[in-house]
């Protein structure tokens, strides 16, 4: 990361022995700089050179893992300030909190609700990631009980939220094997907490009263030999969190080492609505983990959606394969819909065809993953391409009729399409949500 070929070359043996598969050491250095080779392919680098190159090539923000199994979470490895520069790598983990002042039954009920915060979007499953257990009671015994209750039900890894090492130790004795996140070490408890995190080999949040204290604490923790760190600047109001998160990200990219870790933000605004809004800001602005209190799907769906949007690779829209999709129990009389292979577009249409309760075939044209109107404006959603799909997909063997429904937004295509394909073209509604009522008028 960031090293030029020449800088790398200086550290190599310069013998041109070709053992790495490259003709010269310089060629190998160039390949390494371009990310096309890895250092271990050269068997001859000295240990000193290896260390120098490794730390220089380490990502500006360390990768930290929480949890085990299929719901384990990876955070960090970010390399940019703006998503248009490259892309954001690891989606913000969403943690929903429970408190140890709740009864075991209440905790169980809320965790069950959290487990259900799973949403289908553009053909992918999107869910929350963590259950945060708060030591609101300040009682180590109650905390351990709550952790036990949450752990029994949660499909997600836990965040152990207590600043009391005694409480954390009790909790870790129960769940350490599942690699929960300890939250947190602060100026008062840093040694005890770090020792626990080391002993149980779990990631830990380091919280400062401000950025200066945070940097000092991180150096201390790293000095004690613990590197699985998540940063908390201590800010809780949205304007302060924005400023601090911006600083943390900028400093990390400038390779200020104490801030080279993912960061957590806690959206604990007393106004429950504003708390969701704040959490949205944290997702857009660099938080690797955001903690919220609400398990209401009406609150979580917008956050999960925003996270998906912000973390989408700006170079590569999410696309579906261009082929015949069958929705429901289709037969040879079922309607045939044309759309584009932009995931969002396809899944809007698929959802609406499904809710029309009339089984149908959907044929997304390959528009390089762009929407109907964008595809049309860019010349990628054309009568020629639709005709080709009608002819080569095999749809003609699946239906007896020769009627095809196109999106209302591209009504202008219908004449040419009819001429080229010899299919009767029905212009559908502009929004796929209108498909059900369209069918009632024009199909059934």
């Amino acid at each position, binding site marked *: 990361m960031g090293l030029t070929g020449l800088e790398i070359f200086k550290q190599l043996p310069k013998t041109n022995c070709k053992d790495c598969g490259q003709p010269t050491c310089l060629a190998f250095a160039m390949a390494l700089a371009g990310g096309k080779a890895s250092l271990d392919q050269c068997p001859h680098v000295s240990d000193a050179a290896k260390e120098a190159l490794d730390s220089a090539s380490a990502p500006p923000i360390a990768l930290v893992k929480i949890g085990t199994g299929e719901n384990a979470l990876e955070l960090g490895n970010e390399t940019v300030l703006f998503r248009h520069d490259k892309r954001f790598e690891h989606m913000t983990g969403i943690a929903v909190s429970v408190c140890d002042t709740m009864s075991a039954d209440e905790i169980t009920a809320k965790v069950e609700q959290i487990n259900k915060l799973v949403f289908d979007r553009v053909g992918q499953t999107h869910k929350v990631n963590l259950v945060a257990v708060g030591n609101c009671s300040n009682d180590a015994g109650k905390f351990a009980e709550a952790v036990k209750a949450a752990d029994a039900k949660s499909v997600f890894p836990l965040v152990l939220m207590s600043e009391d090492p005694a409480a954390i130790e009790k909790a870790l004795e129960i769940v350490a094997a599942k690699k929960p996140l300890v939250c947190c070490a602060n100026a008062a408890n840093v040694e005890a907490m770090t020792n626990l995190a080391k002993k149980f080999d779990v990631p830990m949040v380091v919280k400062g009263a401000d950025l200066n204290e945070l940097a000092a604490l991180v150096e201390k923790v790293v000095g004690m030999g613990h590197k699985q760190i998540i940063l908390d600047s201590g800010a809780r109001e949205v304007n302060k969190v924005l400023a601090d998160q911006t600083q943390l990200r900028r400093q990390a990219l400038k390779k200020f080492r104490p801030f080279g870790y993912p960061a957590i933000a806690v959206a604990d605004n007393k106004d429950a609505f504003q708390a969701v809004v704040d959490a949205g800001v944290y997702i857009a602005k660099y938080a690797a983990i955001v903690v919220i209190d609400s398990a209401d799907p009406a609150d979580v769906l917008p956050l999960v959606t925003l996270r998906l949007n912000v973390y989408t690779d700006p170079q590569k829209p999410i696309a579906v394969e261009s082929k015949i999709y069958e929705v429901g129990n289709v037969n040879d009389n079922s309607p045939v819909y044309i759309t584009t292979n932009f995931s*969002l577009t396809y899944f809007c249409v698929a959802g609406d065809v499904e809710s029309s309760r009339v089984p149908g075939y959907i044929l997304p044209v390959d528009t390089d993953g762009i*929407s109907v109107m964008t595809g049309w404006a860019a010349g990628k959603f054309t009568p020629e391409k639709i005709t080709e799909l009608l002819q080569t997909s095999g749809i003609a063997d699946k239906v007896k009729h020769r009627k095809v429904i196109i999106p209302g937004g591209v009504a202008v295509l219908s004449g040419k399409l009819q001429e080229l394909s010899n299919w009767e073209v029905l212009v559908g509604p502009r929004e796929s949500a209108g498909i059900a009522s369209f069918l009632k008028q024009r199909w059934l």
Partner: protein
Amino acid sequence: MAVTIAKERWTSKVNELVLGAEPNAIKVGGDGTLPFLFFEGDMPNRPVVALEVCDMEPAEWPDILKEAYAGVLGDPVAWAKKCVEYGADLVCLRLNSAHPDNKNASPEDCAKTAKAVADAISVPMIVVGCGVEEKDAEIMPAVGEALAGKVALLGCATPNNYKTMTAACMVNGHSIIASSPLDINLAKQLNILITEMGLAANRIAIDPLVGALGYGIEYAYSIMERSRLGALTGDKMLAMPVVCFVGQEAWKAKEAKASRDETPEWGDQARRAILWEVMTATTFAQASGAIFVLRHPDSMKQFNAHVAKMMEPVKY
């Protein structure tokens, strides 16, 4: 351990755009920093909200939205007054009746409506046409004239109609909304064309044709971030405040329209719908939006509460 705060030294600012006439004028823009980063620059004006008013009863608005304007939906003057009562900084009048598929209303009718609304309220106005470029070019000269002296923001200018639209603004002292589909070069190009006609750069607002949360928000977000970086580093043709037509996009989303019965796994509809509009807006505020056209008064309230907090400067 003292951390050296990382501050960018920006060389330029966003233009300050004046909306409305004294004593009710408001200003937007003027930022010398990325949004809300007071530690490295000024943000003299907070983002403002316009509530939307249509000149004919909107057919496709969901009930949650209609309920907020019960009794005034057929009357743009009463509707606009209601918006002011709710506390809107601006009113955005949308002349849907001009659309050839609707009433194909004449320029005179549109001008009459616009004048009636403007005379009934004290807050500044945005007036946008029906979205058909040729038709908007027909009605805006009349609308501009009827609102002479009110210093309104008129739109939306596109490469196909900007000449007439710009002229309508110039002769009557209004400012203009320049629309371009999510493309920084197209936005710049249109601003150049408009300023070349003689309209001052500080009388233009950029409309990047935003998409809603879940429906292309990320494209507009990145285009807005890039424009702001351009503005702060000296690109005069990107230094315009950005207007975000959030309401029309957010209330099209299935997540705002589907009832709890249709999608029980999505929770309460009203909560979800308002959040959809608010989070679309607050996310754009982080990317540099300056004027937000919203629909629901509760969304406005929540958005303003959030913005008030964001406007409390944090300096290190």
